[in-house]
């Protein structure tokens, strides 16, 4: 953690130097990605196969497993994890939804998780546009929900966060390594 903090400090310092002296930002090692619900919304919209606004979108950076043990090692059990890399993971609802029977107003939220062996706590927090979870402030939590951990047979190499239709609404699915977690969301 200390090493990381120093690294980020160095990055922050180097980032403040002017464009004249520095190169434009290069490609991130853990690239950013979008997932929408309805799934593939931008493609559907562009092909005029869907009308109305999307329901949800997640923006996250995608670290890869790279032969590492992820949960319980790279990602500590029992600690708040940014659920991604670089900037904190963000979830946006374009309409009000319900999570665990609690109304969640439409808007942009940061998304964190506390992974444990048998269950994860998924956290929606109202402070967005953070880097990592270093400034995570639990007093700004919107909701915390515990969800069970499922083991998958195959390994998911890059962290994958996406939405999937479910009987009552949809699920936010998080997969990495041999772990799958699903947060049910209803409309």
């Amino acid at each position, binding site marked *: 953690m200390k090493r990381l903090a120093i690294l980020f400090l160095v990055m922050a310092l180097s980032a403040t130097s002017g464009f004249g002296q520095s190169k434009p*930002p290069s490609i991130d090692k853990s690239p950013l990605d979008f997932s929408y619900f309805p799934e593939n*919304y931008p493609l559907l919209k562009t092909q005029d196969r869907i009308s109305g606004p999307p329901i949800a979108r997640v923006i996250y950076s995608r670290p890869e497993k790279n032969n590492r043990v992820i949960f319980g090692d790279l990602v500590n059990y029992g600690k708040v994890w940014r659920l991604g890399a670089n900037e904190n993971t963000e979830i946006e609802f374009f309409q009000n939804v319900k999570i665990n029977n609690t109304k969640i107003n439409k808007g942009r939220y940061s998304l964190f998780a506390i992974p444990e062996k048998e269950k994860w706590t998924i956290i929606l927090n109202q402070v967005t546009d953070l880097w990592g979870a270093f400034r995570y402030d639990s007093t700004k939590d919107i909701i915390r929900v515990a969800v069970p951990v499922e083991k998958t047979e195959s390994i998911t190499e890059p962290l994958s966060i996406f939405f999937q239709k479910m009987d009552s609404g949809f699920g936010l699915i998080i997969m990495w390594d041999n772990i799958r977690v699903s947060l049910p969301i209803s409309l």
Partner: protein
Amino acid sequence: MTIKIKFLILAAAVVPFLSCNQSKPNPEIRLQPSVTKEGVNPYVAIDKSPMDMSYFPKDFPILRMNGAGETDLIARVIYSRPQRKGRSIFGNSEKNLVQYGKEWRMGANEATEIEFFKNVKISGHPLSKGRYILYCIPTEKSWTIVFNANLFTWGLHMDPQKDVLRVTEPVIEQLPPVEELTIFFEPSATGASLYIVWDTVKVKVPINF
């Protein structure tokens, strides 16, 4: 996001059959089948042109992490980053990836998106706070940058009725050339500049707020 990979595989499979046909392959993008089975690992692959985010104030999340006081967030751009890979990017020739005088999505995959968290002026013209997609019409000497309201789209689905603002700014030579499309903000004397840099081209769009 596996769509693109699937599409590439599909395109690779289809192209040989079309090689004696002058027409281009059907541009329609096939959707991946929805993942319906519980527990199936969809293996959502990393994009070939990965997405990235730039903020103004620059590196806002890092500033916030470092507790550098409560500065207001002004703008954020989210875009995908194609790479040059030895290609000639801008020009008049069919060999060029981006043709002069034609609308270009200024990114890859999902439409490039810019959000302003307060009302701003772009090249002196007012633009209300909110979210827009960005595209441009590049020429040799200048680029027209377009802010359009057709959000959450893929590529560039032209809908000029939803154009909100068009501004034109001169092309600045970028040396050495930049490998990846790079969009970012820098502070300026009067606010900020939005830079779009790729290959040997740089365009600077002034923002006041």
